[in-house]
Structure formats: structure tokens, C-alpha cells
């Protein structure tokens, strides 16, 4: 069997401003559910998805933060974040729902080049 292609999902939209955040989670979980290799990079406004303490209960919408917390159960263990953007938006990554690795812009480029397919959402 051919070696599995590696997919990097580049997440760069805020969690509730559009349906793109939900789409990114869906693609990630579906990819993993079908046993494909997938990693995630949160960059720009996408880092806002990692804000701790999201609470969607009163609005009755899906809680993106909680859905991201389920990533390890799909064996999605490599999650990276644009350190500069997290700092700019004051996102407390230590309290984020999922463990992340902080990257510089240069490392983000290296990460992209290390994958076979890039999907920006």
C-alpha cells in the first residue's frame, strides 16, 4: 500500500464568525475517522478558536473549543499554533482545550512544506 499522504489543515478563521471553524473540525475528525494522517495549524484569527472558557450553552450553538478538546480521541496529537498571533490576541495557550506546540513564522513554513496537502479553512 502506498504511504499515507499527510494533510495539514491551516485554521485561520475565528470560531463563531462563520461556519469555517466548524468545517475545519469536521474535516479534521472525518479525516482521522478514516485513518488518514492529519495535523492542525492555528494561525492568525484562527488562534481565537483556542480561547479557554468558551461557553455556547445559552446560544445553543456548537462549542468549538469543546469539539477541539476531542482531537486526541481521534489520535490527532500534533496541533501547532502561530505563537505570534496567540500573543497578539492574548490567548492563554496553557489553558487551551488541547495541547499545542508554539511555532514561529519560519517554523510554520517548514511545517507546511513537510506536508503533502494543505487545506486552509
Amino acid at each position, binding site marked *: 500500500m502506498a504511504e499515507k499522504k499527510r494533510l495539514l489543515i*491551516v485554521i*485561520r478563521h475565528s470560531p463563531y464568525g462563520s461556519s469555517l471553524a466548524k468545517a475545519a473540525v469536521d474535516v479534521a475528525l472525518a479525516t482521522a475517522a478514516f485513518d488518514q494522517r492529519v495535523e492542525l495549524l492555528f*494561525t*492568525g*484569527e484562527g488562534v481565537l478558536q483556542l480561547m479557554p472558557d468558551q461557553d455556547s450553552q445559552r446560544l445553543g450553538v456548537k462549542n468549538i473549543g469543546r469539539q477541539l478538546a476531542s482531537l486526541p480521541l481521534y489520535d490527532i496529537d500534533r496541533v501547532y499554533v*502561530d505563537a*505570534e498571533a496567540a500573543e497578539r490576541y492574548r490567548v492563554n495557550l496553557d489553558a487551551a482545550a488541547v495541547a499545542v506546540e508554539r511555532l514561529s*513564522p*519560519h517554523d*510554520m*513554513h517548514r511545517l*507546511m*512544506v513537510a*506536508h*503533502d*496537502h*494543505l487545506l*486552509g479553512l
Partner: protein
Amino acid sequence: MSVLLHTLSAAPSSAAFKDCLKVLQPGDAAVLMGDGVYAAVPDTEACGALLATGAQLYVLDTHAQLTGVTCTAQGIGLVDMDGLVALSERYCRQMAWY
């Protein structure tokens, strides 16, 4: 080997444009299309920032023509649809910034 081709279709003031700018590197290519073509206007901040990345820059000819961006900065090449296809064959990965 050429590795990373970016297609940039967001306006220069957008978050997507800035996100793209952050990772563009020498050895990459970027094709400006849609609202991204406005970054090909010479002597603009966006154009200067793009040129400073050292990436190979192109603008999609029909989109430049449509928007009236007829005079493009030196260092930004015009590319047509066939040229875009050729680029996508030359670069093994593509990232869309929209």
C-alpha cells in the same frame, strides 16, 4: 525543487493577506487573484511587503485587467490561466489564502 505555491485572493487589508505574508519565503511563488490583485499596484504598502518576502510573484492577467490594475509593480509577473496551471504543476504543494 519548487515546493510551495500560494494563491492569494484576499484584499491587502484582510487577515488572510497578512497571514499569507507571514509565511511567504524565498523559493515560494504567490499568484495574486481576486481582490489580491490590488497588492500588485506599485508603491503601495502591500506591494512593498510582498516584494520584501523574496517570493516569486505573479498576478492573474484577467483579474488584473478586470479590476483596472493594468500597471503592475516591477517584480510581479503577469500570468494567464495556462500559466497558473503550469505553476501548479511545477510546485508540489498549494495553499489557498482567501
